[in-house]
């Protein structure tokens, strides 16, 4: 711990934060056999966006917000970027575009408000947040009590920041528009009558408000899934994306913070490539499933990985849009002071 007042303590101070905010990286892999599910960013494309905007490594950790964000103060110069679901972003009170990297100087305030589109938004820092590593990952797993739990008053540690780097911008990804998600039958699909499986594929499906990082309850327009036999099985390992059907017939898609095993039969499994698209559908959002073969799902995964890998080449330097200039002028007039970093961007 460096002494206060020396100016050496660099980091992002949390002034306020939504209780659903977490720290996430690519997840805690390799401990499933001991009952530890991976956690990790709900939108892996968004996590990769932030790494591309800041030139980070693929294992660097970001703040993940579910619907609402928080208010933060820079201690020292910081390079930040936002990604994923677009949220209201302000720096020292002035609106800033989403999905760009930007610089904060010591004392600057960044505010992340309500989500405009999607569910999970991310705030990244150059080099990633240096919170506690547990079992090889910084991801918060609230249910298991693993990883850092962000809260007001904390200073999130960061690596030494560059004095200057090129601010980058990325286009909006298209997975927020996806309303058809790929599905595979799984080991327990046979527990369900053929007609019920057909109904799952034919239904218009609505995302329930009962959703979190563990799972998303979904509702078929044609009603709950019925099964003549009991739906309980001898406990077995659960894959991410498995769609479990509990006693009342409501399906739940099991996600990053799920339990590692369970005794409810699972009717099907979501394709890995579509996990991020599902996670970004808000409560009340509507979609459909499309049955695919294993080969089709693997091909979709290959395309998904290529899209992540290509983000660095898609990031372009931020150019000043003339429409932004009046806003900058009014901000300077209102605040009565400028520390000059706006000018550095020119």
């Amino acid at each position: 711990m460096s002494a206060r007042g020396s100016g050496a303590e660099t980091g992002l101070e949390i002034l306020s934060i939504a209780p659903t905010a977490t720290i996430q990286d690519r997840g805690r892999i390799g401990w499933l056999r001991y009952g530890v599910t991976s956690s990790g960013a709900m939108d892996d494309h968004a996590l990769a966006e932030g790494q591309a905007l800041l030139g980070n490594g693929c294992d660097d950790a970001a703040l993940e917000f579910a619907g609402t964000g928080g208010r933060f103060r820079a201690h020292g110069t910081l390079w930040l970027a936002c990604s994923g679901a677009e949220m209201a972003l302000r720096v020292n009170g002035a609106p800033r575009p989403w999905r760009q990297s930007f610089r904060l100087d010591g004392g600057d305030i960044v505010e992340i408000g309500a989500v405009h589109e999607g569910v999970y938004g991310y705030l990244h820092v150059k080099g990633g947040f240096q919170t506690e590593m547990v079992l090889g990952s910084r991801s918060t797993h609230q249910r298991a009590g693993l990883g850092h739990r962000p809260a007001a008053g904390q200073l999130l540690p960061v690596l030494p920041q560059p004095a200057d780097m090129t601010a980058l911008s990325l286009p909006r990804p298209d997975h927020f528009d996806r309303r058809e998600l790929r599905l595979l039958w799984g080991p327990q699909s046979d527990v369900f009558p053929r007609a019920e499986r057909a109904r799952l594929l034919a239904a218009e499906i609505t995302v329930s408000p009962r959703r979190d990082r563990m799972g998303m309850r979904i509702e078929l327009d044609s009603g709950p899934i019925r099964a003549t036999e009991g739906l309980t099985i001898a406990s077995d390992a659960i894959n991410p994306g498995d769609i479990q059907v509990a006693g009342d017939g409501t399906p739940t898609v099991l996600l990053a913070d799920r339990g590692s095993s369970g005794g409810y039969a699972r009717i099907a499994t979501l394709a890995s490539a579509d996990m991020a698209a599902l996670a970004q559908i808000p409560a009340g959002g509507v979609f459909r499933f499309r049955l695919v073969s294993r080969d089709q799902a693997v091909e979709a995964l290959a395309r998904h990985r290529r899209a992540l890998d290509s983000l660095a080449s898609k990031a372009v330097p931020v150019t000043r849009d003339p429409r932004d200039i009046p806003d900058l002028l009014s901000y300077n007039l209102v605040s009565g002071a400028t520390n000059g970093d706006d000018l550095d961007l020119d």
Partner: protein
Amino acid sequence: MSSASSSTAFGPPVIRLAGDMGILVEFGDRYHPSINAAVLAFDAAFEGRRPAAVIETVPTFRSFLIRFDPLALPFDTLHQLLSEMLESRNWYESGPPTRRRKWVIPAVYGGMRGPDLAEVADLMDQREDQVIDSHAATLFTVAMLGFSPGLAYLGQLSEIWDFPRRTTLNPEVPAGAVLVAVRQTVLPSTPIPTGWRQIARTPFRSFNPRSDTPFLLQPGDQLRFEPVDEAAYAAYSAYDMDALLHEEGA
């Protein structure tokens, strides 16, 4: 040469697709010591032949899940390896793991440490001391880990313990709760919500994320509970558990 899978009441094992990054080898559809032993033996054998693109593996009561990168390891290649391994021997005749350990775990039964003991005694139509004696006399095997970090499913109690879980959920039982239902004991290392009934509590924690050995209990390990009083309970440090290891090897 005898057939690998015809001379048994179990099996044959089935290889199933489990999502686009998973393959499940199902050895059975229920908990049974022979099925569980087959899973654990297969797990040990697979570890020796594990392709680099395998991300992780999960042995359960009755099956073995392999999560892998299908872009680095074609499904058919992995399927071929698993088929060859399954054909190579009768896994149901494996017997217990050779490197399992034996644990003696102190536990305080009843009272505030086991708030559901009286209810369990009613369900079993036994006195509370008979319930404790029966539980403490049982030599358990760790059948699987799962649900929450380090939580151990222990098999198997006698038939008088064959009562169901509650239909309602207790929102939280503490780490170290000794939980019972369906002839099994469950031993969580973190607080969990549960429908199982708590008859005791142990200071033992199988999971310590800050240890070099974060998980102590392994599938196949043997374990029995030693009834102790509150003073003995307090004397155990929750994170110095090596003293509980009774005997190395089987």
